[in-house]
């Protein structure tokens, strides 16, 4: 299952909050793409994955992809 959230124009910590809201209740293995242009998102989304036990997949051109663990 693949979901996405558009956090463009949102400042830290909103992109991570939007990601966390979308992730809540989703089964392990769910892939979520976060579109974000805030420079902090590129650091904070991988950090969120580490703190929450999810897998950070990649950042490509402002799209940050995670897989729920």
């Amino acid at each position: 299952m693949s979901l996405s959230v558009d956090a463009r124009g949102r400042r830290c910590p909103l992109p991570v909050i939007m990601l966390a809201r979308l992730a809540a209740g989703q089964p392990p293995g769910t892939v979520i793409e976060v579109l974000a242009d805030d420079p902090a998102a590129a650091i904070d989304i991988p950090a969120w994955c580490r703190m929450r036990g999810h897998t950070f997949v990649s950042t490509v051109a402002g799209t940050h992809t995670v897989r729920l663990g």
Partner: protein
Amino acid sequence: MCGPPGLGWSCPGRDTVARVGVYFDSATAAPPHPVARQAFLAALDDGWADPGKLYAQARQARHLLDAARSATAAVLSVRPDEVHFTAGGTDAVRQAVAGARLARDGRRVVVHSAVEHSAVIKAAGADAVAVPVSLTGRVDLDTLASALNSPDVALAAVQSANHEVGTLQPVAEAAALCRSAGVALLVDAAQSIGRIPVPTGWSLLAGSARKWGGPAGVGVLAVRKGTRWESPWDSPVDVPAIVAAAASLRAVHDESARESARLAALVAEVRAVIAATVPDVEVVGEPDERLPHIVTFSCLYVDGEVLLHALDRAGFAVSSGSACTSDTLRPSHVLAAMGVLTHGNIRLSLHSGVSTEDVRRFLALLPGVVADARAEAGVAGL
């Protein structure tokens, strides 16, 4: 009260700090050490003349300047003629970089850790190689070694310890790599001078008096004999400020063993208590190999600026590396290089005016402040 009669601004020392709140930002500027103020006022009477002139008043100023230089050299374990006073820590770093480039004709590149102070990164400019760091902020020595292996390198820069997260850098190992590569090493020791022993093996060492309880606008650059470095410019010599800086340095150095042990125990307590009492918090930096006075953590889903203001209202002055608290709206390059959470970030930096009770009041208050910020943002339980 101090300052000119009638103007009556208050002394920024212990009493005022206690009255307006608890000051936890010594890594930006330490409250002036009492001996700095005494030395400054005395040197203003006796050391106002230009120390370069050939008359009695100048000789008196020169005598004070020489004594300040000797005292500074003794603390840094260098010779007095290796000590250069500068117009602040940033000027010391800029002189180090510009002087190394001058002396290494044609070589421009500065190899530096990715977590150096922005003064170093700005001084290095475009001709720079940033060496990555670990999750705890320690520079990667293998990458440093390969980056040094280039004919364009003029200088390497590795801080003694990180100014945002407190992690000590492996300076001795970095110095050995620089020695084999024939590259001078600049150690920005702004956060460690006067607190822990000065590292060894470096060619240039930079510091800032404001960080050790001296006045703003005085820095020090120590350059070991034989270093390929030429003085790029002369900084103004403010004798009373330099005398105050040296007096404060000697005082904090003399107190450092006891004081650093006291602060290190408080920092260890802060790290342990915050991790236990604040949910979803990341306490960053090396757990043990760290400065005695700095502790940093990031709270998930919380805006750093909201925390900063809430703590200010509660009477605690702290600093943050979160993007929302910076002029550029970019997160701290230190936290970014480490790959740790950049939002909800708070740095406490302690000093001699901070008591155990101050720290425990902060620790008792913090979980509620973070919980309120999360409730306000509607992220509780996420």
